[in-house]
């Protein structure tokens, strides 16, 4: 077998090992490659940054599961840090059954960094099944959909939610979405139907699908995958809002090197393919 034919038949196990090593090296010894902030991430940051203690609360919907944590959880942490640093009140909910577990982890850690108090500075509504009825119902009356919070306390007796009726009483809705139900439903019901301001954080797989909605202004801003999360972490850090751990930014060196290795394999495979085809 000549060398070009061998290039088209590299065992997949070899490719996996090379990619794993390429990713592990920068995790062990960071290179510090620069991360450029994309305008779409900047726009979401600016939208939240324009709010303050007197603004209506922000609603964050955790529409992902543990499988998507590397991309979306750092977004949740960074957005929460930004909100708490600016004394913006936060309401958290989930359209995914696995969401409450992730919310509990984040809400046990981040509010403490800023001495924030449950009920006064943030509240967690929990998970509800049935996306259409939930999002349409919230446009009419949030308390009819979530009469009580995650811990069973009536929303009327919680400081943040006592005077909230519907989307009009929220500054911004942010969905951190790994699929359906997620950003499509929020755009469909909260934005298109009730004209609510919606910001989106998605896994990189979905990012290209969201682009058209950002261009038309239907979406306030977009965080795309681990790259978007790292950009937001850097924005929060550069503005002096938090010195907390930046998980996504730590992974970006590995991301870049992983892409480089995959590109090299694609080029090698193509060279082998075209040369062997020409010989035939």
């Amino acid at each position, binding site marked *: 077998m000549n060398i070009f034919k061998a290039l088209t038949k590299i065992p997949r196990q070899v490719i996996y090992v090379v990619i794993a090593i390429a990713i592990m090296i920068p*995790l062990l010894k960071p290179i510090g490659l620069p991360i450029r902030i994309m305008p779409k991430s900047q726009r979401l940051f600016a939208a939240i940054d324009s709010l303050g203690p007197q603004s209506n609360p922000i609603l964050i919907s955790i529409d992902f599961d543990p499988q998507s944590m590397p991309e979306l959880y750092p977004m949740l942490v960074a957005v929460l840090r930004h909100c708490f640093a600016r004394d913006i009140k936060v309401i958290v909910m989930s359209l995914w*059954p696995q969401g409450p577990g992730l919310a509990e982890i984040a809400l046990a850690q981040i509010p403490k960094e800023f001495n924030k108090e449950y009920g006064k500075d943030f509240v967690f509504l929990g998970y509800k099944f049935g996306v259409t009825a939930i999002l349409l119902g919230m446009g009419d009356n949030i308390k009819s959909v979530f009469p009580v919070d995650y811990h069973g306390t009536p929303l009327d007796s919680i400081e943040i939610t006592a005077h909230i009726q519907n989307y009009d009483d929220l500054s911004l809705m942010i969905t951190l979405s790994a699929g359906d139900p997620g950003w499509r439903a929020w755009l*469909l019901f909260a934005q*298109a139907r009730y004209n609510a301001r919606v910001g989106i954080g998605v896994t*990189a797989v979905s*990012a290209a699908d969201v682009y058209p909605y950002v261009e038309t*202004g239907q979406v306030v801003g977009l965080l795309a*995958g681990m790259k978007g999360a790292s950009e937001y972490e850097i924005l929060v850090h550069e503005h002096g809002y938090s010195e907390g751990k930046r998980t996504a930014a730590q*992974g970006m060196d590995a991301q870049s090197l992983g892409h480089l290795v995959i590109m090299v394999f694609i080029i090698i495979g193509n060279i082998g393919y075209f040369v062997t085809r020409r010989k035939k």
Partner: protein
Amino acid sequence: MNITPDPWIWLSALLTLAIFSFLFRDNILYQFAEHLFVGASAGYLIAITWHNQMVPNLFEPLFIQGNIVYIIPLLFGLCYFARFIPKIGYLVRLPIAFLLGWGSGAIIPALFQRDILKQTQGTLFTIEAFAKWDTGLWAVIMLVGVISVLIYFFFSQERKGIMKPVANLGIIFLMLGFGASFGYTVMSRISLLIGRLQFLLGPWLGIIE
């Protein structure tokens, strides 16, 4: 290196390695981890649906608060099980018809607004779009892209004359779109691997912070 004594992190790490072992070949460790995941997910979903959905939205209002109206959704829901009894199997059509009717009425107007009206508006030339040369250029490219792709999917006329080059241009725009999607997909999969490696090297082995 500072390996954790936490048994839960050990369990998580060993299950991660069991799943990764599939990259070499299918094996019993992978199958064990896969079945455990499917079983745990199903159990979790059933429990959370019961406690978050069935109890507060149906059983409490109906049986504890005595709100008789809730018997209607209960009967509608039970109609789904009619499929198992051939004689009354037709009853399943009732909840399906209700859901289809209600769902269509709720979704179609919003879908039209989100995907047709707003997206069409987005392709229109506005004075603001041409305030700067670069945004103006992007607006022109976007319009050309939308029209050429729409012509590519116009199958009622043979591709001759002007239709052929415009449709071919549409293919280029489509390929660019597919390329962007593929690139993002690779990025997403690499991110997942990074997340797991961060976990293995961090909380488990204690090599990185």
